[in-house]
């Protein structure tokens, strides 16, 4: 028997499925071999699992920073970075070296400790949130019964960190950015959580692995009317939570230079970027988990591919749509942003909850569709049209004088 078989109790499981957990198991086995106390074994196991997640997502961050630039470049008919290494593959390394070697400037009026702590506090919650997401059938860094709650709880820490950064910089643009960030994040947290409620109702669990398990066999939540509606709300709110275009007001560079990051330089600045990208991974990961079936393969025949690869494939798709949106849309204004949250997203998120309830009550099927589709579609059309009418005039007239 191979080491793997010994570790996982039989050849029935396909080895690559276990690959991400291999370091953890190896460390645990080694420690058990030397009669280490049980608590130390599990502690070391957690440490290694965490290290795996950190390593994976830090390299993903580096890769994404390159991919984002390449994709945006292509959208804009440019080539993107292609000088550092083959296809620009070493660009993240070059960026990293640049960021590390740059002078760290702290403004004279800054609260130096908070100024230092803010970038760290941006990264840590994103990392914590990444810890509860099930990446594969067997790859769940931390199996928490209240995983979803934990995710949202640590997510709110980001707001504090952003405000800390803005306030501690002792400067005006960061302050404006921080105030924007707080109002935006608080407003969009609501639709984010409310739209997840339907999933919790249907699953009956706050545990993320359970939510994924419930969606097996293409019973993805997004393929139900209430799920689609909730997914839409969640996706839009997640863009705002991740401070991405078109909701990137806190760092709206054409208005307030770089918002809360204006007074940062060097590695602290890089940490903000890292936090932002990790946050994007986390929120996209949660989106996949809640609505896109998590690590589930779309078709039964495709299960030969390891589940964690499925997860990352979906992650690529979700993140690409973020990039695509960034390459297309202008930024909204703060009052429009707020109005959209309170008058469109939150009512819709609230409506998905009874819709999910009705869906469960009826048990899906054609009747479920017939009842819930109008229940959701009509409010969507009405709300967005009202919103659109407020934003966009119905007609415009231009005359031509000879």
């Amino acid at each position, binding site marked *: 028997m191979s080491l793997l078989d010994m570790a996982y109790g039989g050849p029935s499981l396909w080895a690559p499925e276990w690959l991400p957990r291999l370091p953890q198991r190896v460390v645990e086995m080694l420690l058990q071999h030397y009669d280490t106390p049980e608590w130390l074994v599990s502690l070391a196991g957690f440490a290694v699992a965490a290290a795996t997640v950190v390593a994976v997502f830090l390299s993903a961050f580096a890769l994404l920073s390159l991919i984002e630039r390449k994709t945006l470049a292509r959208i804009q008919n440019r080539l993107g970075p292609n000088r550092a290494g083959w296809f620009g593959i070493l660009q993240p390394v070059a960026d990293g070296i640049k960021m590390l070697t740059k002078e760290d400037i702290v403004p004279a009026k800054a609260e130096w400790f908070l100024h230092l702590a803010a970038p760290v506090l941006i990264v840590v919650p994103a990392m914590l949130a990444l810890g509860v997401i099930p990446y594969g059938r067997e790859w769940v860094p931390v199996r928490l019964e209240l995983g979803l709650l934990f995710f949202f709880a640590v997510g709110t820490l980001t707001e504090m960190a952003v405000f800390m950064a803005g306030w501690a910089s002792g400067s005006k643009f960061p302050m404006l950015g921080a105030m924007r960030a707080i109002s935006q994040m608080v407003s969009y947290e609501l639709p984010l959580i409310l739209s997840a409620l339907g999933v919790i109702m249907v699953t009956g669990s706050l545990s993320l692995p359970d939510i994924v398990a419930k969606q097996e066999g293409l019973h993805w939540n997004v393929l139900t009317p209430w799920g689609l509606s909730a997914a839409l709300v969640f996706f839009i709110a997640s863009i705002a939570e991740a401070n991405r275009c078109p909701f990137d007001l806190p760092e709206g560079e054409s208005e307030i230079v770089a918002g809360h990051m204006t007074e940062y330089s060097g590695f602290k600045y890089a940490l903000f970027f890292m936090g932002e990208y990790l946050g994007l991974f986390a929120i996209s990961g949660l989106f996949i988990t809640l609505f896109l079936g998590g690590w589930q393969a779309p078709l039964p025949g495709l299960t030969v591919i390891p589940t964690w690869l499925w997860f990352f494939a979906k992650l690529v798709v979700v993140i690409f749509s973020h990039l695509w949106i960034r390459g297309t849309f202008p930024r909204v204004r703060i009052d429009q942003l707020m109005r959209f949250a309170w008058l469109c997203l939150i009512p819709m998120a609230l409506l998905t909850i009874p819709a999910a309830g009705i869906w469960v009550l009826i048990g899906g099927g054609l009747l479920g569709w017939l009842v819930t589709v109008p229940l959701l579609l009509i409010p969507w059309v009405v709300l967005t049209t009202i919103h659109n009418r407020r934003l966009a005039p119905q007609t415009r*007239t231009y*005359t031509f*004088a*000879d």
Partner: protein
Amino acid sequence: MTAPDRNSMDRESPDSHAGELPSQSGEAGFTALQSESPDSLASLLARLHDALPQAGVTLRTNPGPAAQHSLLVEPTHLTEVCRFLRDTPDMAFDFLSNVTGVDWPDPAKADTVAVPAEGEANASASGFLEVIYHLYSTTRRVGPLVLRARTADRGDNAKIPSLVAIYRSAEFQEREIFDLFGVEFTGHPDLRRILMWDEFTDHPMRKDYVAPDDYEYEPTPHDAVLEKAKRHDPSQQ
């Protein structure tokens, strides 16, 4: 001259469309804008004399091919004249396009460019600063009506009343002339330097302005400049 009304297009009416609106002023549309001939300028002048006899507006002829003749207005009556030109319905000079400042250290030269009529008094003995306004009428589509106003001298009395209250477009242009020529526009709401920095003291567009030689040393093929730079920057000697 018929005055086409720019506001008269009924844009909101759903029935109006191409070709149905009456053309307001004949086939040509409107009088093409041209510099007013001395005759019509003279009639305008006559009306000005009638309406504002105290203003002392005189005609100045432009000897060049452009033939844009101008009206010289006493600075003390400039605002009245402009208000009259703007508010009289069949004049309607509602658009102040351009404000130019000119420095005339030699007053005789000023009279070669804007020639006074026979027998009229020539410019004062001392040099002066001149402000030239180009007025247009967007409704009547005529112009430019050139107005000139001259200060008493180039020193403390270089004052001309501001036109900002009548033509908002003069706001930045008057600030610019104040900055670069040193004409004080009395009544300007916010008369500060605009292009030069606040601490700057001289008026660079005046003819007798001497540029400071406090620029950085830089090798150049021009020996004179080089020498000057070397004199100024001892480290290069």
